[in-house]
């Protein structure tokens, strides 16, 4: 793996790990920590890309005796495995980020919610939490400061939708992982109705790393709107699948596939799913785009969670569409009508198309209508993005070939 930003601490055990980010943070006022994160330009790495410093500042500014930090480690997007990599290889960096966000926001309580299937990551993080309590890095008077912070691990139990922050909150509260209507946003009324920061694993690890420097090297990397680096997990038809750290703007999507992941297995690239199966596919002709939030958005797609899947031109595209549609049909929480019925109905149409081997223009029109309805009316990110990939594949590969 090519390492740029998280390089120096990979594989370190507790004795070797310096917690410099936390030590620096504790010497500062919470607002100063928030300012440093804001200056770094760090955006949420779970998929939505919301500025992290602003989220922290909102929770900090609300007066409440009880606030929560939740580390969202419910990584379940097919093609995405960078959070597992971080938890298994850099658990202290992730936990350090959670504690720093607790300090910066005035929260005394934190949760890390890890998907139940990640048994190895769960074991490692559980042990790391125990060690941090022993070393006085969690609990009362952390590192001899006035700051106290408790952290608990909660295991998910097999529900992709719990990656949505409001579903995740319901899940920790002991409910079905159904999404909540927003507003109120979790920063105002989150876990048990209290102000809550929900941050992705990679976001928190990056925050810990940013705090470990006196200057701000993170903000020097990347572009104006996409600062720093991003962990990209690549899988599918490539020769060297794995987790790579990419500086924003330095490489194009094509470079990532060709240079980092060793190129496509098969004749040529059919399409690339740039950020997990909730993001629109890019055709081979569209891959010369620099890897940044703004450039991928310009292409009608998204960085998403960084889960890049490469599909060779020799594959049956309809099989992928069917697989993705089955996934969303099965994983919708079913609470809101557009997402539940939309995904079910699309799945019926997609199944017909898959059996027949091609779509009709009428079917593509219906899919487009349903996609519009679901993406604009669904409660949470799951529904909003569930049909993006499916529709993009139909639009890019099948509109010219179908019968009229």
């Amino acid at each position, binding site marked *: 793996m090519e390492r740029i930003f998280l390089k120096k601490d990979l594989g370190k055990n507790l004795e070797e790990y310096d917690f410099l980010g936390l030590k620096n943070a504790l010497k500062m006022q919470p607002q100063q920590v928030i300012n440093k994160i804001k200056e770094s330009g760090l955006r949420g790495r779970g998929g939505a890309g919301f500025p992290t410093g602003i989220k922290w500042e909102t929770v900090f500014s609300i007066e409440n005796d*009880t606030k929560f930090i939740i580390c969202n480690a419910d990584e379940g997007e097919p093609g995405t495995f960078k959070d597992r990599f971080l938890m298994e290889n850099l658990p202290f960096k992730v936990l350090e980020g959670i504690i720093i966000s607790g300090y910066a926001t005035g929260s005394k309580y934190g949760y890390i919610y890890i998907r139940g299937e990640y048994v190895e990551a769960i074991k490692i993080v559980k042990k790391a939490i125990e060690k941090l309590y022993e070393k006085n890095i969690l609990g009362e008077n952390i590192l001899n400061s006035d700051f106290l912070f408790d952290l608990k691990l909660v295991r998910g139990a097999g529900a992709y939708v719990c990656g949505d922050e409001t579903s995740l909150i319901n899940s920790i509260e002991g*409910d*079905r992982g159904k999404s909540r209507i927003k507003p109120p946003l979790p920063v105002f009324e989150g876990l048990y109705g209290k102000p809550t920061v929900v941050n992705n694993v990679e976001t928190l690890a990056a925050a810990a790393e940013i705090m470990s420097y006196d200057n701000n090297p993170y903000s020097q990397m990347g572009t104006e709107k996409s600062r720093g680096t991003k962990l990209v997990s*690549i899988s*599918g038809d490539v020769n060297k699948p794995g987790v790579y750290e990419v500086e924003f703007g330095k490489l194009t999507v094509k470079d990532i596939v060709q240079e980092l992941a060793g190129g496509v297995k098969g004749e040529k690239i059919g399409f690339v799913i740039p950020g997990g199966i909730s993001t629109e596919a890019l055709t081979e002709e569209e891959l010369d785009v620099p890897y940044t939030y703004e450039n991928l958005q310009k292409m009608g797609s998204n960085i998403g969670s960084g889960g890049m*899947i490469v599909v060779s031109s020799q594959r049956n595209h309809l099989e*992928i569409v069917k697989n993705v549609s089955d996934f969303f049909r099965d994983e919708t929480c079913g609470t809101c009508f557009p997402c539940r019925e939309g995904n079910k109905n699309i799945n019926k149409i997609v199944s017909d198309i898959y059996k027949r081997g091609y779509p009709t223009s009428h079917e593509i029109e219906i899919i487009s209508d349903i996609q519009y309805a679901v993406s604009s009316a669904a409660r949470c990110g799951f529904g909003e993005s569930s049909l993006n990939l499916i529709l993009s594949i139909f639009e890019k590969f099948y509109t010219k070939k179908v019968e009229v």
Partner: protein
Amino acid sequence: MEKYYEKELLEELHDIQETYGFISEEDILRISQKRDIPKAQLYGVISFYSMFHLEPTGKYIVRVCDSVSCRLNESTTLVKALKDYLKVEENETTKDKKFTLEVVECLGHCDEGPVMMVNDTYYTHLTVTKAIQILDSLE
């Protein structure tokens, strides 16, 4: 504040299942009384999560991933071979109660597919032969 730090319901359910292999009606009744949650609500929660079981499962739960990345690594062939070998369909348990087969969504080892998990152990870069050898070796 302590009330927030009681054991979360999901953790309690995980612990029960780890001990007994499934969550029984008696457990549900007990939790319902202890936490003052209606039984119907508890059933709703438990059935929502695919990792919880209301019925006994086999000694080994075999979870095979069939999501996009694994599909590109021929997981379909693996799933079919395992069904044939164990003589069960998805979510069924073998007659000798040894194996329960589950076809699951993404196990997060997309770069090492196809992947299966047997109880808490991951097996990556599988072939049909290798997968069957692994199951054969389990007592």
